[in-house]
């Protein structure tokens, strides 16, 4: 019952007027950004970070704002999937399969209402899971020494992207590239300048936020410029969302299963929301078989992936908060925010800053309710935003990114750096090399090296300490298992395609 006490305390933090207001702003902005095609949670959260800094927000408040944006984006992603058949972000891809046919049949409002309830249920179940499991994980993690942490980082990199992206080689190349970029700057242990080539701007290392916005937002704009300027058709009549909400009672079991699957996919490192929605959709489809009308507007085909991807978004917060190891691109950005504010997530965070952790958890519960309430009456408004022309939206995104980055240090050098990372991100995406492992490498590299060196200084340079404890051996075994599972899965998919 300790948890309930903590949670009650968290609600006291989250219910402060400033935090409530930020959660409301975050949810609204998040839903809007998520609804815009091409701009997913990664970009939404990345763009908000410089703003959060400039507001001069305290870490707890900034985190509440960004996590509300994150949850809001996951909610909003479904809107353009259903209305336009263009996923607002990658995890919302599965929602197009049945959502768009429903909208074409004049049941768009129903699909939006149903998916709002499914998203709410998924996110709430995941937040309950976060409340219950994160403290358990913390209890284990508190006993980790540097060697175990090093093993944990290896686990994160062994599994990153393996499942979601096509090629293992490319994911690992991306991770190594990120780790190497992470070593640029003055080495904190020996004060030796590494790979700075005399540029004093690089002495502090590569700024995470500059790299993030370049890799995600700028490369997105570059990609956008070469796409066909898609003619966005005016949305058809949507109808009321209320019947869809009642409809959700019939889909309760679908929503429940989708949420649990999504939650598990979210907790696993490197899997994330796309896998969550994919698995819950395909399992639901297999379960009903010919009985269902999947692919032609089955309501269950909307409920399952939406419950799945929102649950995965909540689940992904568990490893980020309790271990300091993000499992997805968006949680990596949240980690970047915390690191930039000199807060290191991990087991100690739960002990030293319970206000922040539990305030955040409570804010997630409140944010979920807000999102549900916002989405029922305002869904028509959100759908209208999709009609805003891209020649207005994209320059706005570019400029917010630009001024936000400039305002961090008032330095044009950061802007050049951002553009360089934009080109890098663009080329990597063209080569189908995932960019998320690059960011993870950049973010985690410093900690990884630090833990390696601490472990080594304990034994005076004996490498065997890295695999001398039961915990670290289990982590390596777990990593190897996940890696093999991913390889087998990739082989199976390849065989099926061939």
């Amino acid at each position: 019952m300790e948890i309930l006490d903590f949670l009650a305390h968290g609600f006291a933090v989250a219910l402060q007027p400033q935090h409530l207001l930020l959660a409301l702003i975050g949810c609204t902005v998040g839903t809007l950004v998520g609804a815009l095609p091409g701009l997913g949670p990664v970009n939404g959260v990345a763009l908000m970070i410089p703003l959060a800094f400039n507001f001069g927000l305290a870490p707890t408040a900034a985190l509440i704002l960004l996590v509300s944006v994150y949850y809001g984006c996951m909610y909003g992603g479904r809107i353009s999937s259903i209305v336009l058949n263009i996923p607002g972000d990658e995890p919302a891809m599965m929602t197009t399969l049945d959502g768009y046919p429903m909208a074409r049949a004049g049941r768009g409002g129903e699909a939006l209402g149903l998916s709002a309830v499914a998203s709410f249920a998924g996110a709430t179940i995941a937040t309950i899971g976060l409340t219950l499991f994160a403290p358990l994980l913390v209890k284990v993690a508190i006993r980790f020494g540097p060697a175990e942490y090093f093993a944990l980082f290896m686990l994160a990199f062994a599994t990153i992207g393996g499942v979601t992206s096509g090629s293992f080689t490319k994911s690992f190349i991306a991770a190594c590239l990120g780790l190497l970029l992470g070593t640029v700057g003055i080495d904190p242990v020996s004060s030796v300048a590494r790979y700075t080539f005399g540029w004093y701007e690089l002495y502090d290392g590569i700024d995470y936020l500059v790299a993030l916005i370049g890799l995600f937002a700028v490369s997105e704009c570059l990609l956008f410029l070469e796409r066909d300027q898609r003619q966005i058709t005016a949305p058809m009549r949507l109808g009321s969302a209320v019947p869809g909400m009642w409809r959700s009672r019939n889909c309760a079991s679908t929503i429940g299963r989708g949420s649990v699957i999504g939650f598990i996919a979210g907790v696993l490192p490197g899997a994330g929301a796309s896998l969550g929605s994919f698995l819950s959709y395909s399992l639901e489809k297999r379960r009903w078989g010919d009985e269902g009308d999947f692919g032609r507007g089955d309501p269950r085909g909307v409920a399952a992936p939406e419950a799945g991807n929102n649950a995965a978004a909540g689940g992904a917060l568990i490893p980020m908060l309790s271990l300091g190891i993000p499992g997805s691109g968006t949680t990596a950005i949240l980690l970047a925010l915390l690191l930039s504010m000199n807060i290191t997530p991990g087991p100690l965070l739960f002990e030293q800053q319970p206000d922040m952790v539990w305030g955040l958890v409570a804010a997630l519960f409140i944010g979920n309710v807000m999102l549900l309430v916002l989405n029922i009456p305002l869904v028509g408004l959100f759908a209208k935003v999709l009609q805003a022309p891209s020649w207005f939206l994209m320059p706005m995104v570019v400029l917010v990114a630009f001024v936000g980055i400039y305002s961090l240090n008032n330095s044009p050098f950061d802007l050049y750096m951002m553009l360089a990372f934009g080109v890098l991100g663009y080329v990597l995406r063209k080569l189908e090399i995932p960019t998320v492992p690059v960011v993870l490498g950049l973010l985690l590299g410093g900690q990884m090296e630090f833990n390696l060196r601490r472990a080594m200084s304990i034994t005076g340079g004996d490498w065997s300490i890295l695999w001398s404890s039961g915990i670290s051996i289990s982590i390596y075994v777990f990593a190897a298992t996940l890696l093999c599972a991913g390889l087998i899965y990739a082989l199976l998919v390849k065989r099926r395609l061939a």
Partner: protein
Amino acid sequence: MSDAPQVSHAALGDRIAGAVLAILALGAWWHSHTFVTGFMQPVGPGVFPRLVSLPLGVLSLYLIARPGINQRWPQKVALCRQLGLLLLLGCYAVVLEPLGFVPSTLVATVLLMRLFGAQWRQALPYGVLLGLALFALFEFALGIPLPDMPGGSG
């Protein structure tokens, strides 16, 4: 980078990337030997970069040998627009401090809107509106000191 438009050149992109990354790994490995290891440090500043550049090099060589799938590279028109975006943003970054925020941003927004497909009669009013709105947001709502116009009050 390469502007090979065909999908059949996919392997080429991966091979070029593999070669570039392999050279990068080799360079990082070689350069890491110049980092001086301090006293009483079992693991010096060069060890971790070497630990990373080894798998990077090996995997890059593997990528050269077994290239995968690439997306289609942009056609000429798209490439020009992308270069235009980079050039425009680069110039914006250069003139931001000398010219001040408001004039450089107004020009940048209007040109950006043109680049993203607006007509002049759309880009001019909305560009000015967006530029001023951003100025108001950052200068007044967020209280960020933005570079002033030269000759301005300070």
